[in-house]
């Protein structure tokens, strides 16, 4: 005998993500989910962004192990909550919802959620964020967009970090832009260097434009 079910296997995750979104919306806080490989420079991007950002912000840091990233953000004076997932390759929505309790959302117009370094699972698991940002670095090579189409299809913005390394690495910006078109990306693209600060302005403007007025 067949039992028809037809149920979304991610429904438990999606229900929690909707709760998170409701908490954020009630506070007027906009959440940005930063997704990229380990070493793409997600934390460095935050370190470059937070002191220059014209709006109040807080950070949720996700890592498999250690609180090193949270310590780096904490040194900037930005409120931060660390989630260590232990074994999970992505941030689970349940932990993000719980992490919101540790933040004063009324004094954060933007919340950055730095996901676990991975281009696959974080793209699939919704956290209740308003925007997904894919962080790619020139040192990783220019083939990542084509290899991980789901993330780049879904991303609202793509940051191409470490442009200061362009003279030293094999990386074609044209190829990346063409691949983005091929995966049906509608993302805003920002070429920048978190290290030198080059190209940050457009990224900061984009973020400022996402925050809600208070």
């Amino acid at each position: 005998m067949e039992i028809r079910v037809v149920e979304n296997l991610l429904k438990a995750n999606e229900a929690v993500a909707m709760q998170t979104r409701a908490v954020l919306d009630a506070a007027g806080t906009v959440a940005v989910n930063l997704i990229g490989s380990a070493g793409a420079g997600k934390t460095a991007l935050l370190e470059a962004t937070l002191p220059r950002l014209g709006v109040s912000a807080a950070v949720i840091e996700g890592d498999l192990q250690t609180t090193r990233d949270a310590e780096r953000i904490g040194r900037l004076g930005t409120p931060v909550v660390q989630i260590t997932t232990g074994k999970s390759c992505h941030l689970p929505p349940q932990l993000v919802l719980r992490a919101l309790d540790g933040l004063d959302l009324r004094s954060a117009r933007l919340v950055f959620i730095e996901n676990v370094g991975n281009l696959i699972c974080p793209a699939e698991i919704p956290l209740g964020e308003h925007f997904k940002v894919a962080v790619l670095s020139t040192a990783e090579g220019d083939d990542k967009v084509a290899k991980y189409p789901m993330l780049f299809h879904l991303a609202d913005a793509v940051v191409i970090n470490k442009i200061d390394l362009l003279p030293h690495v094999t990386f074609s910006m044209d190829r990346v832009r063409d691949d983005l078109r091929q995966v049906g990306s509608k993302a805003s693209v920002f070429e920048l260097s978190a290290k030198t600060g080059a190209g940050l302005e457009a990224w900061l403007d984009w973020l400022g434009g996402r925050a809600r007025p208070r």
Partner: protein
Amino acid sequence: MHEMAIAESIAEQVEAAIAAAGHPRVLEIRVRAGALRAIVPEALTFCFAAVAQGSPLEGASLQVAVVPVTILCPACGVRAELEDGAPLICGRCGGPGDLIAGRELLLESIEVEE
């Protein structure tokens, strides 16, 4: 390695469904996974076997049907199934296509003993 988390969801949702039907023995579980989910069916069945071990679902077979990526062009209305899952652009006008299939991850049905 996202298959393990998905295998756990399958087990949870199947157990809930069979509880409602009076706990019949489960013979087969059918799942539909969009090609963009990047699920390796062999990895998922392996993980599911591990999750099911020692549970009422032990021995149930897991069938994973991969659903091809399909796009619909919002500009010219062309609908296309993409063999390789790429590119996600309209073959006629070259504009970005809207995904209408290929992202799903569904528990479809459960075959149980009469």
